[in-house]
């Protein structure tokens, strides 16, 4: 089955079985390896991409369902101002995620700080429970997310 969609702001086409998972298409057909695959059950958060601006685990998305949609992977997101809000905050709080959970955590945090108020500790903890991780201290991660929100707020992103 041939499917057209927009990947990292470029029009692309793929020819594969309709039920092939988006995560496998991204990694195998487009060699975008920074989005990781692990549980294939939508539970570990390592395969998150943005579909039409919302974070979605790509292992739960059959390729036929994304015809003409906008997909953004971490490779396409990196370098943007929104991305920098998060990365500079992670560096400041010393909680840079490892390469395995990097994409998932960045997209999840991006959506959490896109609201109109600073995320609460409970909201951050609930985000963290969706990204099982044993290497980032919880207190630092909470701080990192709060700084990321401030960065975005300072940039006036929220007012746009």
């Amino acid at each position, binding site marked *: 089955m041939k499917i057209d969609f927009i990947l990292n702001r470029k029009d692309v086409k793929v020819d594969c079985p309709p039920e092939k998972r988006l995560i496998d298409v991204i990694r195998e057909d487009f060699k975008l390896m920074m989005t990781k695959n692990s*549980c294939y059950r939508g539970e570990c958060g390592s395969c998150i991409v943005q579909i039409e601006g919302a974070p979605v685990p790509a292992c739960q998305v059959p390729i036929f369902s994304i015809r003409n949609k906008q997909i953004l992977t971490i490779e396409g997101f990196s370098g943007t101002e929104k991305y920098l809000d998060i990365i500079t905050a992670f560096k400041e709080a010393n909680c840079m995620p490892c390469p395995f959970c990097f994409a998932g955590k960045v997209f999840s945090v991006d959506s959490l700080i896109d609201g109109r108020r600073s995320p609460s500790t409970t909201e951050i903890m609930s985000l963290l429970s969706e990204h099982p991780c044993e290497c980032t201290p919880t207190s630092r991660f909470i701080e990192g997310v709060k700084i990321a929100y401030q960065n975005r707020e300072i940039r006036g992103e929220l007012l746009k």
Partner: protein
Amino acid sequence: MPEAYKDKRFITDYYSAGMTVIKILRAPVQRGTITSVYIPNLPEGTGVIQYKDIPAEKEISVFENKIPLLCDGNIRYEGEPILLLYGKDERELQILESEIKIEYETDYTILSLENYSQEQINKELNFSRGNIDKAIDKAETILEQQFTTSRQNNYDIDPQGAAAFYSKKKFEIVCATQWPFNVRDNIAECLDIPKKQISVNVPSMGKNHGGKLWYAAIIACYTAIVTSITKKPSICLIPKTDAILFTPGRAASIINHKTALDNEGKILSREIEILFNSGAYPILTDEILNRICFSAAGVYSTQILRITVKSIKTNAPPCGSLTGMGFYQSFFAGEMHCNSLAEAAEIGPLEWRLQNLATKQINLPFGWESKRPMQLKTLLTTVADKSDFRRKYSSYKLTAKKQNNLYGKKRGIGLALCCQGNGFTGKVEQNGRYSVSVRLEMDGSLIIYTSAIPDNMHTAELWCNLAGNILEIDSENVRIETADTELVPDSGPSLYSRNITVITQLIERCCNAIKKSRFRRPLPIEIKRTYRTPATTGWEPESFNCKPFSTISWGAVAVETETDPITLMTDIRGIWFAADCGKIINEETAKAEVENEIYRSVMNSMVKPPVFSYLKQNIPLTPVKSSIFFPVDIEFIKSRETKPGGIGELPDSLIPAALSEAISMALNTEIKNLPSNPKSLFRQIEHRKKVEAENNED
């Protein structure tokens, strides 16, 4: 995206179209025999491997234990690998799997430890010192209690798997492992080829707790067998559910304590029996028995002592190497028992501990002469003072006794004290000649060659900083080479804080040697150092009077909780942790490590154990961290030990007991099982009510 991340390849990143994919077919019964196997006509490029097809050695070795690569016809646990299918992709293998017919004859199964038979005892360790009967005669109080801990599955964030490549008569194996040389040696045996024809590379890995210690060698052997047949690259990736169920978990245990106290509440004697469920194939048994024996009686002065530890074979998946193995079960039961002893002696738990603490190492149950003073009292009073333990304990105890109503959350506070043996017990370190080498290049950069896999990015950072400091090199110019068994020396398995103790020491020794000859010898200079256990170290469990580890770390914790008496859900109000763990190289990193482990331990102590059923596949992929936030206070007290010690395993030995004690106090009950989730709490409360009712009737 951080530039360095672009080169980081995890095992799943090694898959590419054209590789042969391997799928494991597992046993659907817990115990039985395979009576027939029907294999359909196989399309080209696909194949099936059974036990009889394994070219040479059909078992992998892990020190003194062995475990078969595939089932030999007798099924010993549900999910045991029966055969391997290989082909071009997952879809093809699924079709093939549906056409294969395997018939079984089932047999009765033994999953639990209760009512075990003599034949199930795989190994036993006994220790006895002093006259127990005399002590019992003199005793004012005798307390007998039983504790149980459930099996705890291993959870790794990154996938488990291996890939094999073949060219120029050599096998290149990429394997997510904590012990690359064990992988190499087992493949050599399995294919009956010289070790030099195999190189093992380790891809990027997440934090691991032992799940990739020996299990990785099995997966790597699968890929090596398939590639030796097809001469094509092959890959075997373990689905997450299988990884959780079958990578070695923490063994379930039953622990019986019988303690005699004098009229002041001081210990006269202790009898401890520990049974642990090693599953169908006991692995690392000697090490586990030693560790349990060492930690069984805790850190209290005990002269008259009897300890029996038994490893019991059942039809559960093999257990073994999970971090803290042995210490976790011992300290949970031991510390909970201490609380009951304090209660029986009508003394507060803090005071009872202070009164019974070993003040010198020679007074410890496993005592030995040491010049280093014990700081257990300081540890205990540090967490007690910081948590305001005395006041909270009295106030919560009073409230708990008065409360008959179910309104409002109930608070509790618990204490625990423990130690952690760093590295393996003497013999493993003595028998293996484990090394590290360090090379100072002409351009001034430094390379550390070791097969030890840093547990996390912090360990790697720590090694680079340490080497950089000694040689006055910017840590950015220090690189760790763990990649290939052909390039790096065998540094042994990465477990039980060996990375912090053994490997860090070796790196330090190499760097100090380079420092001495740096301006006298031309560059590059490469120095190799091999670990030798200190002369004082030796472990003879039978005599029980020796030092089994090169260093020991000590820890104490106070945990304050708030439990809803209706839902039995618990919130943590605060955790206060103190440790004496030798030289701290980077305090910030050490604190981060402890905080992580505390969160993980809280989660493990309170979550439901996964239901084990391979067929039903009904296990949740439990998140490692709980979604509750709580403040954690960590203090490292000034240590007189000059060597660095491990800290990562202390929370696992401390939190379950302190947390359970706090919940016990809040609910005015006695918790004797782990985990302390609402369902198990409900069962324990109901059981207690029943016992009380029966006693009242009598």
